[in-house]
Protein backbone atom coordinates (compact mmCIF):
# COMPACT_ATOMS: atom_id res chain seq x y z
CA UNK A 1 0.00 0.00 0.00
CA UNK A 2 1.43 3.38 -1.02
CA UNK A 3 0.82 5.75 1.88
CA UNK A 4 2.68 8.56 0.12
CA UNK A 5 -0.24 9.49 -2.13
CA UNK A 6 -2.08 12.74 -1.54
CA UNK A 7 -5.39 12.89 0.32
CA UNK A 8 -7.20 13.60 -2.94
CA UNK A 9 -5.55 10.64 -4.69
CA UNK A 10 -6.68 8.50 -1.77
CA UNK A 11 -10.29 9.71 -2.05
CA UNK A 12 -10.30 9.14 -5.81
CA UNK A 13 -8.84 5.65 -5.34
CA UNK A 14 -11.50 4.66 -2.81
CA UNK A 15 -14.26 6.03 -5.02
CA UNK A 16 -13.07 4.15 -8.11
CA UNK A 17 -12.44 0.94 -6.16
CA UNK A 18 -8.66 0.81 -6.61
CA UNK A 19 -8.03 1.46 -2.89
CA UNK A 20 -9.73 -0.17 0.08
CA UNK A 21 -10.33 2.33 2.88
CA UNK A 22 -9.89 -0.46 5.41
CA UNK A 23 -6.51 -1.53 4.01
CA UNK A 24 -5.28 2.04 3.72
CA UNK A 25 -6.25 2.98 7.27
CA UNK A 26 -4.84 -0.30 8.61
CA UNK A 27 -1.54 0.45 6.85
CA UNK A 28 -1.60 3.97 8.25
CA UNK A 29 -1.93 2.59 11.79
CA UNK A 30 0.92 0.17 11.05
CA UNK A 31 3.03 3.11 9.89
CA UNK A 32 2.27 4.92 13.16
CA UNK A 33 3.31 1.84 15.10
CA UNK A 34 6.48 1.57 13.01
CA UNK A 35 7.73 5.16 13.07
CA UNK A 36 6.10 6.97 15.97
CA UNK A 37 8.50 5.57 18.51
CA UNK A 38 11.10 7.81 16.83
CA UNK A 39 8.87 10.74 15.82
CA UNK A 40 6.45 10.93 18.76
CA UNK A 41 3.86 12.76 16.69
CA UNK A 42 0.91 11.17 18.50
CA UNK A 43 -0.39 11.44 22.05
CA UNK A 44 -3.21 8.98 21.36
CA UNK A 45 -3.96 6.58 18.52
CA UNK A 46 -7.45 5.29 17.64
CA UNK A 47 -7.30 1.57 16.85
CA UNK A 48 -11.05 1.68 16.08
CA UNK A 49 -10.28 3.73 12.95
CA UNK A 50 -10.00 0.49 10.93
CA UNK A 51 -13.59 -0.50 11.82
CA UNK A 52 -14.83 2.90 10.65
CA UNK A 53 -12.88 2.55 7.39
CA UNK A 54 -14.29 -0.97 6.89
CA UNK A 55 -17.77 0.49 7.22
CA UNK A 56 -16.95 3.02 4.48
CA UNK A 57 -15.92 0.16 2.14
CA UNK A 58 -19.15 -1.70 2.92
CA UNK A 59 -21.27 1.36 2.21
CA UNK A 60 -19.53 1.92 -1.12
CA UNK A 61 -19.98 -1.76 -2.09
CA UNK A 62 -23.67 -1.56 -1.25
CA UNK A 63 -24.04 1.40 -3.63
CA UNK A 64 -24.44 3.99 -0.91
CA UNK A 65 -22.99 7.45 -1.49
CA UNK A 66 -20.25 8.29 1.01
CA UNK A 67 -18.84 11.67 1.99
CA UNK A 68 -16.04 13.35 0.06
CA UNK A 69 -13.35 12.22 2.52
CA UNK A 70 -14.13 8.50 1.89
CA UNK A 71 -12.51 7.33 5.13
CA UNK A 72 -9.44 9.56 4.73
CA UNK A 73 -7.17 9.05 7.78
CA UNK A 74 -6.77 12.39 9.54
CA UNK A 75 -4.85 13.29 12.67
CA UNK A 76 -5.97 16.10 14.96
CA UNK A 77 -3.98 18.42 17.22
CA UNK A 78 -4.72 17.60 20.85
CA UNK A 79 -6.41 20.94 21.56
CA UNK A 80 -9.38 20.18 19.28
CA UNK A 81 -12.25 18.28 20.89
CA UNK A 82 -13.48 14.89 19.68
CA UNK A 83 -16.41 13.32 21.54
CA UNK A 84 -15.36 10.61 23.96
CA UNK A 85 -11.65 11.09 23.35
CA UNK A 86 -8.93 12.71 25.45
CA UNK A 87 -8.02 16.33 24.76
CA UNK A 88 -4.89 16.98 26.80
CA UNK A 89 -3.53 20.15 25.15
CA UNK A 90 -0.11 18.65 25.82
CA UNK A 91 -0.65 19.37 29.52
CA UNK A 92 -0.63 17.26 32.69
CA UNK A 93 -3.45 19.54 33.83
CA UNK A 94 -5.79 17.96 31.25
CA UNK A 95 -4.15 14.55 31.19
CA UNK A 96 -7.45 12.76 31.88
CA UNK A 97 -9.87 15.19 30.27
CA UNK A 98 -12.33 13.50 27.89
CA UNK A 99 -14.31 15.80 25.64
CA UNK A 100 -18.11 15.44 25.79
CA UNK A 101 -18.60 17.07 22.39
CA UNK A 102 -17.14 17.48 18.89
CA UNK A 103 -15.51 20.66 17.63
CA UNK A 104 -17.32 22.02 14.57
CA UNK A 105 -14.36 21.11 12.32
CA UNK A 106 -14.62 17.53 13.57
CA UNK A 107 -18.39 17.40 12.91
CA UNK A 108 -17.86 18.71 9.39
CA UNK A 109 -15.13 16.20 8.61
CA UNK A 110 -17.20 13.41 10.18
CA UNK A 111 -20.16 14.40 7.96
CA UNK A 112 -17.86 13.85 4.97
CA UNK A 113 -16.74 10.45 6.29
CA UNK A 114 -13.23 11.33 7.45
CA UNK A 115 -11.67 8.81 9.84
CA UNK A 116 -9.68 10.17 12.78
CA UNK A 117 -6.55 8.15 13.55
CA UNK A 118 -5.42 9.98 16.68
CA UNK A 119 -4.49 13.17 18.49
CA UNK A 120 -1.13 14.82 17.91
CA UNK A 121 1.51 16.26 20.18
CA UNK A 122 1.83 19.99 20.79
CA UNK A 123 3.46 22.55 23.04
CA UNK A 124 1.45 22.80 26.26
CA UNK A 125 -1.69 24.85 25.51
CA UNK A 126 -0.04 25.74 22.15
CA UNK A 127 2.51 27.97 23.90
CA UNK A 128 5.71 27.32 22.02
CA UNK A 129 7.09 26.68 18.57
CA UNK A 130 9.09 23.49 18.92
CA UNK A 131 6.80 21.00 20.82
CA UNK A 132 9.56 20.88 23.43
CA UNK A 133 7.08 22.39 25.89
CA UNK A 134 4.73 19.40 25.64
CA UNK A 135 4.32 17.78 29.06
CA UNK A 136 4.57 14.43 27.28
CA UNK A 137 7.96 15.02 25.67
CA UNK A 138 8.91 16.58 22.34
CA UNK A 139 8.11 15.42 18.83
CA UNK A 140 11.00 14.89 16.41
CA UNK A 141 11.42 16.06 12.84
CA UNK A 142 11.00 13.17 10.35
CA UNK A 143 13.71 14.79 8.16
CA UNK A 144 16.26 14.49 10.96
CA UNK A 145 15.25 13.36 14.41
CA UNK A 146 17.88 15.56 16.05
CA UNK A 147 15.83 18.57 14.85
CA UNK A 148 12.64 20.04 16.21
CA UNK A 149 9.60 19.64 13.94
CA UNK A 150 8.55 23.19 14.83
CA UNK A 151 5.38 23.99 16.71
CA UNK A 152 3.13 24.30 18.35
CA UNK A 153 1.37 21.94 15.89
CA UNK A 154 4.63 19.98 15.57
CA UNK A 155 2.95 16.60 16.03
CA UNK A 156 0.47 17.37 13.26
CA UNK A 157 3.18 18.43 10.80
CA UNK A 158 5.40 15.46 11.68
CA UNK A 159 2.48 13.04 11.28
CA UNK A 160 1.76 14.31 7.75
CA UNK A 161 5.44 14.32 6.81
CA UNK A 162 6.02 10.78 8.14
CA UNK A 163 2.96 9.35 6.30
CA UNK A 164 1.16 8.62 9.59
CA UNK A 165 -2.02 10.20 8.15
CA UNK A 166 -3.24 11.78 4.92
CA UNK A 167 -3.74 15.21 6.48
CA UNK A 168 -4.00 16.87 9.85
CA UNK A 169 -5.68 19.72 11.67
CA UNK A 170 -3.61 22.17 13.71
CA UNK A 171 -4.17 25.56 15.26
CA UNK A 172 -2.27 28.73 14.38
CA UNK A 173 -2.01 31.57 16.90
CA UNK A 174 1.27 33.09 15.71
CA UNK A 175 2.46 30.61 13.11
CA UNK A 176 1.78 27.32 14.88
CA UNK A 177 0.57 25.64 11.68
CA UNK A 178 2.92 27.35 9.21
CA UNK A 179 6.12 27.08 11.26
CA UNK A 180 6.01 23.27 11.68
CA UNK A 181 4.74 22.91 8.11
CA UNK A 182 7.89 24.74 6.97
CA UNK A 183 10.19 22.70 9.23
CA UNK A 184 8.66 19.36 8.12
CA UNK A 185 8.18 20.27 4.43
CA UNK A 186 4.39 20.04 4.29
CA UNK A 187 1.71 22.59 3.39
CA UNK A 188 0.33 24.59 6.34
CA UNK A 189 -2.62 26.96 6.12
CA UNK A 190 -3.83 29.79 8.37
CA UNK A 191 -7.18 31.04 7.01
CA UNK A 192 -8.72 34.49 7.18
CA UNK A 193 -9.79 35.10 10.79
CA UNK A 194 -13.30 33.72 11.16
CA UNK A 195 -13.29 31.47 8.10
CA UNK A 196 -13.00 28.31 10.21
CA UNK A 197 -15.03 27.85 13.37
CA UNK A 198 -13.08 27.76 16.63
CA UNK A 199 -15.92 26.02 18.47
CA UNK A 200 -14.30 23.09 20.24
CA UNK A 201 -10.77 24.47 20.00
CA UNK A 202 -9.33 24.94 23.49
CA UNK A 203 -8.72 28.68 23.67
CA UNK A 204 -5.28 30.24 23.95
CA UNK A 205 -5.60 33.72 22.38
CA UNK A 206 -9.10 33.96 20.93
CA UNK A 207 -8.68 37.25 19.09
CA UNK A 208 -6.05 35.91 16.69
CA UNK A 209 -6.01 32.10 16.65
CA UNK A 210 -7.47 29.89 13.94
CA UNK A 211 -7.69 26.19 13.15
CA UNK A 212 -5.86 25.30 9.93
CA UNK A 213 -5.15 22.20 7.83
CA UNK A 214 -1.73 20.62 7.20
CA UNK A 215 -1.34 18.38 4.18
CA UNK A 216 1.13 17.06 1.63
CA UNK A 217 -0.21 19.16 -1.26
CA UNK A 218 -1.87 22.55 -1.73
CA UNK A 219 -4.80 20.84 -3.44
CA UNK A 220 -5.38 18.72 -0.32
CA UNK A 221 -5.46 21.88 1.77
CA UNK A 222 -7.98 23.47 -0.62
CA UNK A 223 -10.10 20.32 -0.44
CA UNK A 224 -10.09 20.34 3.37
CA UNK A 225 -10.88 24.05 3.45
CA UNK A 226 -13.94 23.38 1.27
CA UNK A 227 -15.09 20.88 3.90
CA UNK A 228 -14.42 22.77 7.14
CA UNK A 229 -14.74 26.50 6.28
CA UNK A 230 -17.81 28.64 6.75
CA UNK A 231 -20.02 30.31 9.30
CA UNK A 232 -21.04 28.46 12.42
CA UNK A 233 -23.79 29.53 14.82
CA UNK A 234 -21.64 28.16 17.65
CA UNK A 235 -18.84 30.67 16.92
CA UNK A 236 -19.98 34.26 16.46
CA UNK A 237 -16.64 35.30 14.98
CA UNK A 238 -17.14 33.11 11.91
CA UNK A 239 -17.87 34.40 8.43
CA UNK A 240 -19.48 32.81 5.36
CA UNK A 241 -17.16 30.88 3.08
CA UNK A 242 -17.13 31.55 -0.64
CA UNK A 243 -16.14 27.91 -1.20
CA UNK A 244 -14.62 26.74 -4.46
CA UNK A 245 -11.09 26.66 -3.05
CA UNK A 246 -10.26 23.48 -4.94
CA UNK A 247 -12.25 24.02 -8.11
CA UNK A 248 -10.43 27.20 -9.12
CA UNK A 249 -7.00 26.26 -7.88
CA UNK A 250 -5.30 25.95 -11.27
CA UNK A 251 -6.14 29.53 -12.27
CA UNK A 252 -2.47 30.55 -12.18
CA UNK A 253 -0.88 33.83 -11.13
CA UNK A 254 -0.19 35.55 -14.44
CA UNK A 255 -0.43 39.31 -14.00
CA UNK A 256 -0.47 39.16 -10.19
CA UNK A 257 1.55 41.68 -8.24
CA UNK A 258 3.55 40.23 -5.37
CA UNK A 259 5.26 42.24 -2.62
CA UNK A 260 8.38 40.84 -0.98
CA UNK A 261 8.26 42.07 2.63
CA UNK A 262 11.67 43.63 3.30
CA UNK A 263 11.38 43.41 7.12
CA UNK A 264 10.91 39.63 6.78
CA UNK A 265 13.93 39.05 4.55
CA UNK A 266 16.60 41.22 6.15
CA UNK A 267 18.54 41.05 9.40
CA UNK A 268 18.95 37.61 10.95
CA UNK A 269 17.88 35.60 7.92
CA UNK A 270 19.85 32.43 7.23
CA UNK A 271 21.77 32.60 3.94
CA UNK A 272 20.14 29.39 2.63
CA UNK A 273 16.71 30.83 3.42
CA UNK A 274 17.62 34.12 1.70
CA UNK A 275 18.79 32.21 -1.37
CA UNK A 276 15.57 30.16 -1.45
CA UNK A 277 13.55 33.37 -1.21
CA UNK A 278 15.35 34.85 -4.23
CA UNK A 279 14.67 31.62 -6.10
CA UNK A 280 10.96 31.82 -5.18
CA UNK A 281 10.80 35.37 -6.55
CA UNK A 282 12.37 34.19 -9.83
CA UNK A 283 9.94 31.30 -10.12
CA UNK A 284 6.90 33.46 -9.42
CA UNK A 285 8.12 35.96 -12.03
CA UNK A 286 8.60 33.05 -14.41
CA UNK A 287 4.91 32.26 -13.97
CA UNK A 288 3.95 35.76 -15.08
CA UNK A 289 3.74 37.57 -11.73
CA UNK A 290 5.64 40.77 -10.98
CA UNK A 291 7.54 41.04 -7.70
CA UNK A 292 8.92 44.06 -5.90
CA UNK A 293 9.92 44.90 -2.34
CA UNK A 294 7.44 46.40 0.09
CA UNK A 295 8.14 47.76 3.56
CA UNK A 296 5.84 47.13 6.52
CA UNK A 297 7.41 49.22 9.28
CA UNK A 298 5.31 47.75 12.11
CA UNK A 299 6.64 44.22 11.47
CA UNK A 300 9.62 45.21 13.67
CA UNK A 301 7.24 45.50 16.62
CA UNK A 302 4.94 42.64 15.70
CA UNK A 303 6.58 39.95 17.84
CA UNK A 304 6.50 42.11 21.00
CA UNK A 305 2.90 43.03 20.24
CA UNK A 306 2.00 39.40 19.60
CA UNK A 307 3.51 38.06 22.83
CA UNK A 308 1.99 40.86 24.89
CA UNK A 309 -1.50 40.22 23.51
CA UNK A 310 -1.26 36.43 23.68
CA UNK A 311 0.11 36.44 27.23
CA UNK A 312 -2.79 38.65 28.30
CA UNK A 313 -5.43 36.50 26.62
CA UNK A 314 -3.75 33.31 27.82
CA UNK A 315 -3.73 34.61 31.39
CA UNK A 316 -7.48 35.08 31.12
CA UNK A 317 -8.18 31.79 29.31
CA UNK A 318 -6.11 29.67 31.67
CA UNK A 319 -7.98 31.07 34.67
CA UNK A 320 -10.66 28.43 34.00
CA UNK A 321 -8.28 25.64 35.01
CA UNK A 322 -9.21 25.37 38.67
CA UNK A 323 -9.27 21.54 38.55
CA UNK A 324 -12.96 21.53 39.43
CA UNK A 325 -14.60 21.63 36.01
CA UNK A 326 -11.60 20.24 34.10
CA UNK A 327 -8.56 18.55 35.46
CA UNK A 328 -6.87 15.59 37.00
CA UNK A 329 -7.54 13.46 40.04
CA UNK A 330 -6.60 15.59 43.03
CA UNK A 331 -8.90 15.54 46.06
CA UNK A 332 -10.47 18.71 47.41
CA UNK A 333 -10.59 17.58 51.04
CA UNK A 334 -8.58 19.65 53.50
CA UNK A 335 -7.90 22.55 51.13
CA UNK A 336 -9.08 26.14 51.20
CA UNK A 337 -10.34 27.28 47.77
CA UNK A 338 -7.41 29.48 46.68
CA UNK A 339 -4.70 27.21 48.04
CA UNK A 340 -6.36 24.27 46.29
CA UNK A 341 -6.26 26.07 42.93
CA UNK A 342 -2.64 27.18 43.47
CA UNK A 343 -1.65 23.64 44.32
CA UNK A 344 -3.61 22.13 41.42
CA UNK A 345 -1.98 24.52 38.98
CA UNK A 346 1.45 23.23 39.86
CA UNK A 347 0.76 20.78 37.03
CA UNK A 348 1.25 23.58 34.52
CA UNK A 349 4.67 23.42 32.88
CA UNK A 350 7.32 26.13 33.26
CA UNK A 351 6.54 27.88 29.95
CA UNK A 352 2.81 28.09 30.67
CA UNK A 353 3.58 29.37 34.17
CA UNK A 354 5.92 32.02 32.71
CA UNK A 355 3.26 33.16 30.26
CA UNK A 356 0.61 33.28 32.97
CA UNK A 357 2.91 35.49 35.02
CA UNK A 358 3.49 37.66 31.95
CA UNK A 359 -0.25 37.63 31.32
CA UNK A 360 -0.81 38.98 34.79
CA UNK A 361 1.94 41.56 34.51
CA UNK A 362 1.55 43.27 31.11
CA UNK A 363 -2.13 44.28 31.41
CA UNK A 364 -1.89 45.20 35.10
CA UNK A 365 -2.46 48.67 36.52
CA UNK A 366 0.71 50.70 36.04
CA UNK A 367 1.96 48.57 33.16
CA UNK A 368 -1.00 48.28 30.77
CA UNK A 369 -0.30 51.62 29.07
CA UNK A 370 3.29 50.68 28.42
CA UNK A 371 2.71 47.16 27.16
CA UNK A 372 -0.82 45.93 26.45
CA UNK A 373 -2.35 49.13 25.04
CA UNK A 374 0.73 49.81 22.91
CA UNK A 375 0.59 46.23 21.65
CA UNK A 376 -3.02 46.75 20.57
CA UNK A 377 -2.02 50.00 18.83
CA UNK A 378 0.81 48.26 16.97
CA UNK A 379 -1.70 45.59 15.91
CA UNK A 380 -4.02 48.29 14.61
CA UNK A 381 -1.30 50.15 12.72
CA UNK A 382 0.14 46.93 11.29
CA UNK A 383 -3.30 46.00 9.99
CA UNK A 384 -3.59 49.38 8.30
CA UNK A 385 -0.13 48.99 6.74
CA UNK A 386 -1.19 45.60 5.40
CA UNK A 387 -4.35 47.19 3.99
CA UNK A 388 -2.25 49.77 2.14
CA UNK A 389 0.06 47.04 0.85
CA UNK A 390 -2.88 45.10 -0.53
CA UNK A 391 -4.07 48.18 -2.43
CA UNK A 392 -0.91 47.79 -4.50
CA UNK A 393 -0.19 44.06 -4.31
CA UNK A 394 -2.34 40.94 -4.71
CA UNK A 395 -0.07 38.86 -2.49
CA UNK A 396 2.84 39.23 -0.10
CA UNK A 397 5.81 36.87 0.02
CA UNK A 398 8.38 35.96 2.67
CA UNK A 399 10.14 32.87 3.92
CA UNK A 400 7.87 31.21 6.50
CA UNK A 401 10.67 31.08 9.06
CA UNK A 402 13.88 33.14 8.68
CA UNK A 403 16.08 30.31 9.97
CA UNK A 404 16.53 26.63 9.13
CA UNK A 405 15.03 23.96 11.41
CA UNK A 406 17.23 23.86 14.51
CA UNK A 407 18.19 21.15 16.98
CA UNK A 408 16.07 19.98 19.90
CA UNK A 409 17.19 21.99 22.93
CA UNK A 410 19.10 24.61 20.92
CA UNK A 411 16.84 27.53 21.86
CA UNK A 412 14.84 26.23 24.80
CA UNK A 413 16.64 28.39 27.37
CA UNK A 414 16.55 31.58 25.32
CA UNK A 415 12.95 32.85 25.14
CA UNK A 416 13.74 35.96 23.08
CA UNK A 417 15.66 33.94 20.49
CA UNK A 418 12.62 31.65 20.26
CA UNK A 419 10.29 34.69 19.98
CA UNK A 420 12.16 35.90 16.90
CA UNK A 421 11.56 32.63 15.04
CA UNK A 422 7.94 33.87 14.81
CA UNK A 423 8.77 37.20 13.17
CA UNK A 424 7.46 36.30 9.72
CA UNK A 425 4.31 34.51 10.80
CA UNK A 426 2.68 36.63 13.53
CA UNK A 427 1.71 39.44 11.13
CA UNK A 428 -0.99 37.32 9.47
CA UNK A 429 -2.48 36.50 12.89
CA UNK A 430 -2.36 40.04 14.25
CA UNK A 431 -4.06 41.37 11.11
CA UNK A 432 -6.48 38.49 10.49
CA UNK A 433 -5.12 37.85 7.00
CA UNK A 434 -4.79 34.39 5.43
CA UNK A 435 -1.32 32.89 4.97
CA UNK A 436 0.11 29.63 3.71
CA UNK A 437 3.47 27.89 3.98
CA UNK A 438 4.50 25.98 0.86
CA UNK A 439 7.41 23.49 0.90
CA UNK A 440 10.00 25.11 -1.34
CA UNK A 441 13.57 23.90 -0.77
CA UNK A 442 15.78 21.60 1.27
CA UNK A 443 19.20 22.83 2.38
CA UNK A 444 21.61 20.33 3.92
CA UNK A 445 18.66 18.05 4.69
CA UNK A 446 16.69 20.86 6.37
CA UNK A 447 13.40 21.97 4.77
CA UNK A 448 12.58 25.60 3.88
CA UNK A 449 9.02 26.83 3.38
CA UNK A 450 7.82 29.96 1.58
CA UNK A 451 4.99 31.99 3.00
CA UNK A 452 2.37 33.73 0.86
CA UNK A 453 -0.17 36.10 2.40
CA UNK A 454 -3.32 37.64 0.89
CA UNK A 455 -5.93 40.17 1.93
CA UNK A 456 -8.84 39.03 4.10
CA UNK A 457 -11.28 36.67 2.36
CA UNK A 458 -8.89 36.21 -0.57
CA UNK A 459 -8.21 32.65 0.53
CA UNK A 460 -9.06 31.20 -2.89
CA UNK A 461 -6.61 33.53 -4.64
CA UNK A 462 -3.96 32.69 -2.04
CA UNK A 463 -4.33 28.96 -2.61
CA UNK A 464 -4.11 29.48 -6.38
CA UNK A 465 -0.75 31.23 -5.92
CA UNK A 466 0.42 28.57 -3.47
CA UNK A 467 -0.48 25.84 -5.96
CA UNK A 468 1.36 27.67 -8.76
CA UNK A 469 4.48 28.00 -6.59
CA UNK A 470 4.27 24.36 -5.48
CA UNK A 471 4.27 23.22 -9.11
CA UNK A 472 7.66 24.87 -9.71
CA UNK A 473 9.55 22.67 -7.25
CA UNK A 474 10.50 19.01 -7.03
CA UNK A 475 11.77 18.23 -3.55
CA UNK A 476 13.56 15.15 -2.23
CA UNK A 477 11.50 12.60 -0.29
CA UNK A 478 11.53 12.69 3.47
CA UNK A 479 14.26 10.20 4.54
CA UNK A 480 12.09 8.11 6.82
Amino acid at each position, binding site marked *: MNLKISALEYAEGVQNGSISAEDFVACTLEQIEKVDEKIHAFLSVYEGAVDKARDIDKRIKSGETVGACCGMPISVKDNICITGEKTTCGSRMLEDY*VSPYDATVISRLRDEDAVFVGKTNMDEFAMGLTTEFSAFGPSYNPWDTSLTPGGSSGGSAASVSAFECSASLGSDTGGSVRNPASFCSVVGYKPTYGLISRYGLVSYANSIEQIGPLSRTVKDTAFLLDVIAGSDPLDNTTVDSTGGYLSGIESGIEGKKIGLVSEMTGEGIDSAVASATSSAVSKLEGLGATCEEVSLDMV*KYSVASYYTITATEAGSNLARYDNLRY*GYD*FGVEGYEF*NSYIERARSKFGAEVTRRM*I*LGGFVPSAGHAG*RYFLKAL*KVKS*KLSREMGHAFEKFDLLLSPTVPVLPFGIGDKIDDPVSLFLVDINTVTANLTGRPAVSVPFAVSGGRPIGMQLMADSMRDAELLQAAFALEQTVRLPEVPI
Partner: protein
Amino acid sequence: MVTEDEIRHVAGLMKIKVDDYSGYVEKVNAMISYFDILDSAGVESEEIPFHEISVSSLREDCHVPFDGSLIEHLKHYRGAYVRAPKMSR
Protein backbone atom coordinates in the same frame (compact mmCIF):
# COMPACT_ATOMS: atom_id res chain seq x y z
CA MET B 1 13.39 45.09 35.66
CA VAL B 2 10.94 42.80 37.41
CA THR B 3 11.92 41.69 40.88
CA GLU B 4 11.36 38.33 42.52
CA ASP B 5 8.83 39.98 44.84
CA GLU B 6 6.86 41.35 41.88
CA ILE B 7 6.81 37.91 40.27
CA ARG B 8 5.66 36.39 43.55
CA HIS B 9 2.90 39.04 43.77
CA VAL B 10 1.68 38.57 40.19
CA ALA B 11 1.83 34.78 40.54
CA GLY B 12 -0.32 35.11 43.65
CA LEU B 13 -2.87 37.17 41.74
CA MET B 14 -2.89 34.52 38.99
CA LYS B 15 -3.30 31.82 41.68
CA ILE B 16 -0.06 30.10 40.74
CA LYS B 17 2.35 28.74 43.28
CA VAL B 18 5.85 27.76 42.24
CA ASP B 19 8.63 26.29 44.32
CA ASP B 20 11.35 28.70 43.27
CA TYR B 21 10.32 32.19 42.15
CA SER B 22 13.92 33.21 41.57
CA GLY B 23 14.09 30.74 38.68
CA TYR B 24 11.54 32.82 36.81
CA VAL B 25 13.24 36.20 37.25
CA GLU B 26 15.79 35.89 34.45
CA LYS B 27 13.47 34.62 31.72
CA VAL B 28 10.52 36.85 32.61
CA ASN B 29 12.89 39.82 32.67
CA ALA B 30 14.28 38.85 29.26
CA MET B 31 10.72 38.74 27.90
CA ILE B 32 9.64 42.03 29.49
CA SER B 33 12.85 43.75 28.35
CA TYR B 34 12.15 42.63 24.80
CA PHE B 35 8.64 44.13 25.05
CA ASP B 36 10.29 47.52 25.73
CA ILE B 37 10.79 47.75 21.95
CA LEU B 38 7.12 48.84 21.89
CA ASP B 39 8.26 52.19 23.36
CA SER B 40 9.86 53.08 20.02
CA ALA B 41 6.89 52.07 17.82
CA GLY B 42 5.53 55.62 17.74
CA VAL B 43 1.91 54.55 18.08
CA GLU B 44 0.82 56.90 20.88
CA SER B 45 -1.79 58.64 18.70
CA GLU B 46 -3.11 55.38 17.23
CA GLU B 47 -6.76 54.52 17.95
CA ILE B 48 -7.57 50.99 19.05
CA PRO B 49 -10.40 49.78 16.80
CA PHE B 50 -13.21 47.56 18.00
CA HIS B 51 -16.11 45.80 16.32
CA GLU B 52 -19.65 46.32 17.53
CA ILE B 53 -22.04 43.41 17.21
CA SER B 54 -25.71 44.01 17.93
CA VAL B 55 -27.37 41.73 20.44
CA SER B 56 -29.74 40.54 17.70
CA SER B 57 -26.73 39.17 15.80
CA LEU B 58 -25.73 36.87 18.64
CA ARG B 59 -26.85 33.28 18.59
CA GLU B 60 -29.90 32.31 20.53
CA ASP B 61 -29.17 30.97 23.97
CA CYS B 62 -30.96 27.68 23.55
CA HIS B 63 -30.91 24.40 25.41
CA VAL B 64 -28.97 21.69 23.59
CA PRO B 65 -29.87 18.23 24.91
CA PHE B 66 -26.86 16.16 25.98
CA ASP B 67 -26.97 12.41 25.61
CA GLY B 68 -25.46 11.50 28.94
CA SER B 69 -24.64 12.93 32.35
CA LEU B 70 -22.26 15.88 32.11
CA ILE B 71 -21.55 15.91 35.83
CA GLU B 72 -19.97 12.47 35.51
CA HIS B 73 -17.21 14.14 33.50
CA LEU B 74 -16.08 15.92 36.69
CA LYS B 75 -13.58 14.44 39.10
CA HIS B 76 -15.41 15.60 42.22
CA TYR B 77 -19.19 15.62 42.58
CA ARG B 78 -21.86 14.28 44.84
CA GLY B 79 -25.35 13.75 43.44
CA ALA B 80 -26.11 16.80 41.30
CA TYR B 81 -23.52 19.02 43.02
CA VAL B 82 -19.93 19.90 42.17
CA ARG B 83 -17.62 19.30 45.13
CA ALA B 84 -15.26 22.22 45.74
CA PRO B 85 -12.84 23.18 48.49
CA LYS B 86 -14.14 25.34 51.33
CA MET B 87 -14.19 29.05 50.52
CA SER B 88 -12.87 30.45 53.82
CA ARG B 89 -9.53 29.91 55.54
